[in-house]
C-alpha cells in the first residue's frame, strides 16, 4: 500500500518558504526531463545544470521550512510525501515542457522574476532566507542570460522558430500574473520586512521582458486576464502526473534509500 501523505503545519512563514521551495523543485524537475533529449549536447548540459541549481535551492528552502515547522518533517518528506493539493508552486512552472521554445519562454519569464526576487530578498529580515537569496541570485544571473539569449535566437531566427516562440509567449503569458500575487499571510511577512512585495519588482520585470522580446522581434499579448491557483494548491492536471513520477519510489517503497 502506498505511503500516506504527511501533514504540514502551515504557519505563514512555513507556507511562504514551501511555496518558493516548490517553485524551485518543480521547475528543476521539468528541466531535468530534458536530460538526454535536448537539441544538442551543450544545451542538454545547460538545462541539467540549471535544474541542479534549482534542486539545490529547493533543498535549502525545504530544510529551512522543516526547521521552522519543527514537526519532524524534512526535505525528503516535503518533496516525496505531499499530494498535489499540498504543493504551492506557480502554475507556470508545472506546465509541460512542450517544444524547446516553450521551455525557454517559461524559463525566461521565471528566471527574470527569480533574479529580481532573490536580489531583493538578500535584504530580508530573515537571516536564513537572506542567505539562501545571496546564493540563488548568483545562479539566477546565469539563468537569465541563458534564456534571454535563446529568446532572441529563436524569435529572430527562422519563421519556424519565430512562430513557435510567439505561440509559447501567447500561451504562457496568462500564467505570469501569479508571480505577483500576495495573500494576507504574505502581506504580514512583507510588512515585517521578511518577504519582498513582488509588486515592487513588476516594473523592472516587465521592462526586461519587453526589451528582450522586442529585440527578438516577438511581441507580448495585451490580454490582462491572469490564471491563478497554484499558491493555494489548485493546480493544472500536469502537476499530478509530474508528482506521480517524482514520488513513485518513496510511495512504493516507503523510506527506501540508495
Amino acid at each position, binding site marked *: 500500500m502506498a505511503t500516506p501523505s504527511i501533514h504540514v503545519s502551515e504557519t505563514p512563514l512555513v507556507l511562504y518558504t514551501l511555496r518558493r521551495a516548490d517553485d524551485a523543485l518543480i521547475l528543476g524537475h521539468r528541466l531535468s526531463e530534458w536530460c538526454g533529449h535536448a537539441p544538442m549536447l551543450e544545451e542538454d548540459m545547460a538545462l541539467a545544470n540549471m535544474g*541542479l*541549481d534549482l534542486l*539545490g535551492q529547493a533543498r535549502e528552502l525545504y530544510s529551512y521550512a522543516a526547521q521552522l515547522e519543527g514537526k519532524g518533517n524534512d526535505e525528503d518528506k516535503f518533496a516525496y510525501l505531499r499530494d498535489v493539493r499540498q504543493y504551492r508552486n506557480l502554475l507556470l512552472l508545472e506546465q509541460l515542457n512542450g517544444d524547446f521554445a516553450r521551455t525557454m519562454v517559461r524559463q525566461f519569464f521565471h528566471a527574470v522574476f527569480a533574479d529580481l526576487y532573490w536580489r531583493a530578498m538578500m535584504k530580508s529580515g530573515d537571516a*536564513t532566507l537572506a*542567505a539562501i537569496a545571496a*546564493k*540563488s541570485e*548568483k545562479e539566477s544571473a546565469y539563468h537569465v*542570460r541563458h534564456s534571454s539569449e535563446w529568446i532572441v535566437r529563436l524569435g529572430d531566427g527562422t519563421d519556424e522558430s519565430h512562430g513557435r516562440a510567439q505561440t509559447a509567449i501567447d500561451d504562457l503569458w496568462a500564467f505570469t500574473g501569479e508571480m505577483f500575487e500576495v495573500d494576507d499571510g504574505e502581506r504580514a511577512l512583507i510588512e515585517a520586512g521578511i518577504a519582498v512585495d513582488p509588486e515592487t519588482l513588476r516594473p523592472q520585470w516587465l521592462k526586461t521582458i519587453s526589451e528582450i522580446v522586442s529585440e527578438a522581434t516577438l511581441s507580448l499579448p495585451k490580454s490582462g486576464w491572469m490564471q491563478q491557483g497554484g499558491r493555494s494548491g489548485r493546480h493544472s492536471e500536469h502537476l499530478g502526473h509530474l508528482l506521480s513520477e517524482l514520488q513513485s519510489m518513496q510511495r512504493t517503497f516507503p523510506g527506501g534509500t540508495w
Partner: protein
Amino acid sequence: MVIAMFNDAELRKRAWEVAASVVDPEIPVLTIADLGVLRDVTINEGRAEVTITPTYSGCPAMNMITLEIELALEREGFRDSKVRTVLSPAWTTDWMSEDGCRKLREYGIAPPQAASSRRALFGVEQVACPQCGSTDTEVLSEFGSTACKALWRCKTCREPFDYFKCH
C-alpha cells in the same frame, strides 16, 4: 596522534591543516582551502567542528567533501568530528587563493575572473586560454561538465577548455 597531549590551540591548528588538505573530488588539484570553501575550525572538548560554505546550491561534490573531511580527521585521531555547512556569507570565486588560480591554470582550467563581471548581460568576458595564453577565445556553453564550469574554445590553438565561472 594522541589527542590528549595537545591543547585546544594546537589541536585547532592541526585540525585546520587536516581539513585544509582535503581536495575537491571534481578538481583534485584544488584543496578546499584553495577554493575558499573551508571557513572555520573549532575545538570543543577535543572534538573538531569544521565549517564549510557550499559553492553552488546543487553541487553534488559538497556531500563528498563533507565525508572526506570527516574521514581525514578520523585518520588523524580526531574522533566524532562534525562538519557544519553555513550559507552566509555566500561563497564567491573571489575567495579562491592565488595559488589555487595558478594550479587551476596548470591543470587546464581557466581560473575565474573577478566576480563583478558576472552580471554583464550577453557575455563580454575575456578569458585567456589555459593552454596557449591567447585571449582570442569564445564561449561554447555557459554550462559545462560541472555546475562551476563553462565550456570555452580557443580560436588560436583550437583547443576546447573549461572555464571556472565567476560566482
